[in-house]
Every structure is written in structure tokens, then in C-alpha cells.
């Protein structure tokens, strides 16, 4: 028993709330990748080991599994800090912002970069609890971003489908190229 305890002490480290959840999840991912190796990589006949297409995925996934197992061992051996569920909920809360981001990505090709950004910035600020002048500042920031990146730096963002509704001519071309 004392030998097991000594062995555990060797792996003791600082850990934060939710450390065990992450360590378990990462090891599970590594094991899934390890199990998928025969079907997801190819061993080519008459090819040296180091030139095999499967060599580096194998090295990385085996290393991931070994290090993840050791990390998990460290997690089990270290003093636990309560609050695992709250921490997992904190992580989950970030999914809302990811959804906001993806919604913005989805809207831009439809409504155009200018309109989408002018709506997105104040709307997100509204969700964050800002009111009044801050919403105007957010719109100003959105306008500045579009002007700098799309109009001045000509960053590759496609013109919105909404501009098709404009009458053919100089205005439509101007809006499609610059906003």
C-alpha cells in the first residue's frame, strides 16, 4: 500500500477545478484515435517504416495516449478542488458565444459584411448588458472594421446576396466591392 502511495506522490501536481474531467476526456479522445488507426491510416507495401504514411500519426497518437494516461494519473494523485460541475458549466457557457460567432458567419454571405457587422456588434453588446451610448460606439466600431478590412485592405470576403436586390449599375458594384 505504501508503495502505491509513494508512486502516486511522484505524479502529484497542481490542479484546478475540472482537471479530472478534462484529463478523462482527453484520454478517451486519444484512445478513440488509437482504435481508429487501422482504418484511418494506411501501411504501404515495400515502403520503409519512416516513410510510411501511418508513421507520424502513429507516433503522435501513441504519444498522446501515453502522456494523457500520465496526466490522468497526476490528476488522480493530486488534491481535488471542489467545483467540477460549476467549471463544466462555465465551459459550456462559452458555446453560446461560439453560436453567436457562427450565426454571424452564416449571415455575412446573405446580408453582406456591412449590414451584418452593423447589426452583430450592437446586438451582442445588448446581450452583454450594455445600453445607450455603448450601442452606438459598437456600431461605430463595426463600421470601422468593415471600412478598414473590406474597403481599404480589400480582404477576401464575398459580397452579400442582398446586394443582388440593388438595381444594376455603379451603386451595386460599389457596394459589392467595398462593403
Amino acid at each position, binding site marked *: 500500500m505504501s508503495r502505491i502511495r509513494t508512486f502516486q506522490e511522484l505524479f502529484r501536481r497542481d490542479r484546478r477545478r475540472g482537471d479530472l474531467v478534462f484529463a478523462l476526456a482527453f484520454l478517451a479522445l486519444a484512445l478513440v484515435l488509437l482504435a481508429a488507426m487501422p482504418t484511418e491510416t494506411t501501411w504501404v507495401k515495400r515502403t520503409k517504416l519512416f*516513410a510510411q504514411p*501511418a508513421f507520424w500519426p502513429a507516433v503522435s497518437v501513441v*504519444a498522446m495516449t501515453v502522456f494523457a494516461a500520465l496526466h490522468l494519473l497526476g490528476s488522480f494523485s493530486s488534491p481535488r478542488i471542489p467545483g467540477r460541475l460549476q467549471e463544466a458549466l462555465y465551459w459550456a457557457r*462559452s458555446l453560446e*458565444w461560439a453560436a453567436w*460567432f457562427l450565426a454571424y458567419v452564416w449571415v455575412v454571405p446573405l446580408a453582406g459584411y456591412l449590414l451584418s*457587422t452593423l447589426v452583430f456588434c450592437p446586438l451582442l453588446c445588448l446581450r452583454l448588458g450594455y445600453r445607450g451610448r455603448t450601442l452606438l460606439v459598437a456600431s461605430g466600431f463595426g463600421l470601422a472594421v468593415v471600412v478598414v478590412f473590406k474597403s481599404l*485592405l480589400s480582404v*477576401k470576403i464575398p459580397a452579400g446576396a442582398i446586394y443582388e436586390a440593388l438595381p444594376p449599375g455603379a451603386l451595386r458594384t460599389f457596394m459589392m466591392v467595398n462593403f
Partner: protein
Amino acid sequence: MDALLSGIDLLARLDVLMALLIGSIGGVIIGAIPGVGPAVAIAILLPATFALDPLVGLVMLLGIYGSSMFGGALPAILINTPGTAVNALTTYDGHPMTQRGEAVRALGLAYGASFVSGILSILALILLSPLLARVAPMFGSREIFLAALLGIVLVILAHRGQTFAAGMMAAFGIFLGTIGLEPVKYTQRYTFGQDWLASGVDLIVVILGLFALSQAFLLLNDPEEAPTTQRVEGSMLRAIGEVFRFKRIAAIGSGFGVLMGMIPGVGEFTAQFLSYTYAQKTSKDPDLFGKGSPEGLVASESANNAVPAAAMIPLLALGIPGEALTAMMLSVFYVHNVTPGPGLFQTQLDFVYALYIAMILLNVIVVVFMLFASNWLLRIIRIPTRFLGMMILTLSFVGVYSLRNSVTDCAIAAGFGVFGLVLKRLNLPIVPIILGMVLGGIMEVKLRSAMARVKTPLDFVDRPIAALLAVAIVLLVGLHIVNVLRQFLARRVQREE
């Protein structure tokens, strides 16, 4: 000399100088805002520079890379919050000086130390360049493979107390780099039959997710903070000049910065630790360290600002990045059709000199800017954190979407954003993922070509540099294991007593 003049000629263009000005001042502003940092800014701006002339784009991003630490010292000293991670040590002595009413002196010393070390490190590089031009061609495939492996080993071992976590993240990075269609035998690797995985996972998408989006999510998740600041009064020029009273500390700190910056995977933190420890040990007033010591401040700032220039050595000479920012700079070079590596010093020495001169100029621009703009920058620090999160989220869209106009890229970046947030909350290292992705690809290519000419394992290390690198790797791993066991035994003895 011809190469140097040719380098000056390359830079002497209005658009290049404007890009340098925008990059340098932009870098200071970005560095001064806690929660943004140069990694986020470079990741966002990288796709925006695609349309620019290669030198213009490179110089702008180089400006951000080299100047952000100047800006990072400002909030570290005034509000005890480092603008960039490497300014953390600056808070130890900078903020107590502010509390003593010596804010302008602390800022001046920080800017002065950063300026001196920035210039010294670039001069060291210029002097080293002819040597590098001779040594770099000695690096064949096996030496570059071993240097990349050394980089991976160092970045894992540098994360003391988190070696396993750093190891699994580095391995994860290598794995990410292998996903997609393999370019030699044309087989699919870990694509799970999905077309969108066939082209692999883009490095810039991962960087934007792990650095920019994760930071935005963190800021949006956390409660609002808007730091209060007070105006800085006094002569900044005189305060900057005071750094020459501590010229020995500044010179030694710069030396540590250059030395540590050159070694892949080590970087600013080790340089600062060595510089700070040296300054404390040789100080007449060691007890003041951590309580507002001007020497401690100079030691910290001189070490960290010497690193960016030095970190360009393995990047330019071997094509091996030593940390996340240089990994990003490597992407910048590739995007702009410049291939760092042994050939660069032989064929494009003028270009290398142009980069060095640009770095000297950016240090001059920044220090002049800081003479007048510190109080103006204080207003930027006051941006509420959740509003800043909204700003980063909006800007991240430009970075990710403009790469390939791919919604899938944006979804992958969002996924890595959530993953990065979890890592940051758990205080687990992110940098090894990026280095794993970059160095893994280099190792795969170089090992494959090296092994074609190797018959026995000993052949692999039969050249002096290869042997030296192999011995260094074995020694480092061996010493680390011995060190861990020694610490464990010491703890055990202590407890039993």
C-alpha cells in the same frame, strides 16, 4: 557590406515605412490592452496582409511582434495587470514603484531597458549573420530534424510541473498536422471519410481559435472589469535616460535574452528568470526586489525584449520556430513566398538585413511614440473587458473567414476557441499544440529525406552537428528525469523529518 546597403534599399520605400509605422504603433497599442496580445493581433491580421506586397505585409506583422512588449509594460506598471504574458515579472517591481509615486520613473526605465535590449539584440544578430550564413548550410535534413525534435523536447520540459500536459498537447499538435491527404503516397489520414478534413486542419485556423476566439469567449464569459487609471506626470525622456545608470544589468539581461531566444522552446520566461536572479544576486539592495526595485524592473524588461530578435535566428537560419509567435511568423513568411532556412542567408542576405534594420527602426519609432503617448494609451486600457471580447470576436471573423471563405474553417476555429478556453481555465499549456503542428510537419519531411541516406542508426549522428544535437536531447531528457526524482526524494525526506 553590399548586402547591408541592399537591405537598406529594400526598406527605403514609402509603403514599407508606413507599414512599419502602423505595425510598430499598432503593436504597442495591442500590447497595452490586457487580454489581446500580439498572438491574437498577428493571427487576425495575417490574412489581411495577403493582398499586400510581401515585404509590406511582413514588416507590418514584424512591427506588431517586436513592439507589443513595450506596450505590455504600461498596464503591468500602472494597474498591476501585464499587457502580455511576458510582462508578468514587470508587475513585481513596476507596480510597487507606481504605488510609491514613481510611475513615470518605472515606465521610463521599462521603455529604456526595452529599447537598449532591442537594439543590442539586433546588433548581435547583425554581427552573427555572417557566421550564421556559414553555419546554416551545415544543417542537412537530419540536423534540421534533430533541431526540430530538440525544440519539441525543450518546449515540453520548459513547462515545469506540467510536463505531461505539455507532452500531450505537443503530440496533439503533431497529430493535427498529420490530418488530411498525405502528400507523398496520397493516402488519407484520419479524415473519417469527410471531404472537409481531406485538406487538413489549417494552422492559422487553429491559432485563431486557440488564441483569439478563446480569449474572446473568456472575456465574454467573465464579469465586467474596467480598470481605473491615473495620469502619468513627469519627464519621460529623463526617466528613459536613467536606464544608463543600470547599464550592466541591461546588458546582461539583453545577453540572456539573446541566448535564450536563440534556443527553440525556451524563450522569454527563462531569460527573465536568469536575468532577474543575476540582478538580485549582484545587487547592493537585494531585499528591494519584488518591492519596487529599479534594477529588477530593468532586468525583467531587458531580458524579454531581447528575445523577439534572437528568436528570429532559428526561424530564419533553419526554418524552425521556437515559440508560438515565431510559429505564426513562419506562416507569415510562407504566405509571402519567403522560405526561411539554410538557403535564406546565402541567397537573400539583403532581405535578412532589411528585416534587422526594420527591427532597429521599430524600436526607435516605439520609444519616440512612448515619450508622448503613455497618457493617451491609458484611455485604451480602460476599455471594458466584455466590450473587448465583442471586438475580438468581430475581428476574429476577418481572420478566419477571409482565409478561404469557408464556414467549416469558422466552425473548426470556434471548436478550438472552446478548447482553448478550457485549457486557459485549467492553466494547461497551449503553445505546445502550435509548435507540435509546425515542427511535426518539419520532422516528418526531414526524417523521410534523411533516412533515405542512412543505413544504420549510427549513420544518423555521424556528422558533428547531428551528434551534438542528439547528445543535447538525451542529456536534457536524462537531466530532467534525474531532477524530478531528486525533488521527489527531497520532498519525501522533508516530510519524514
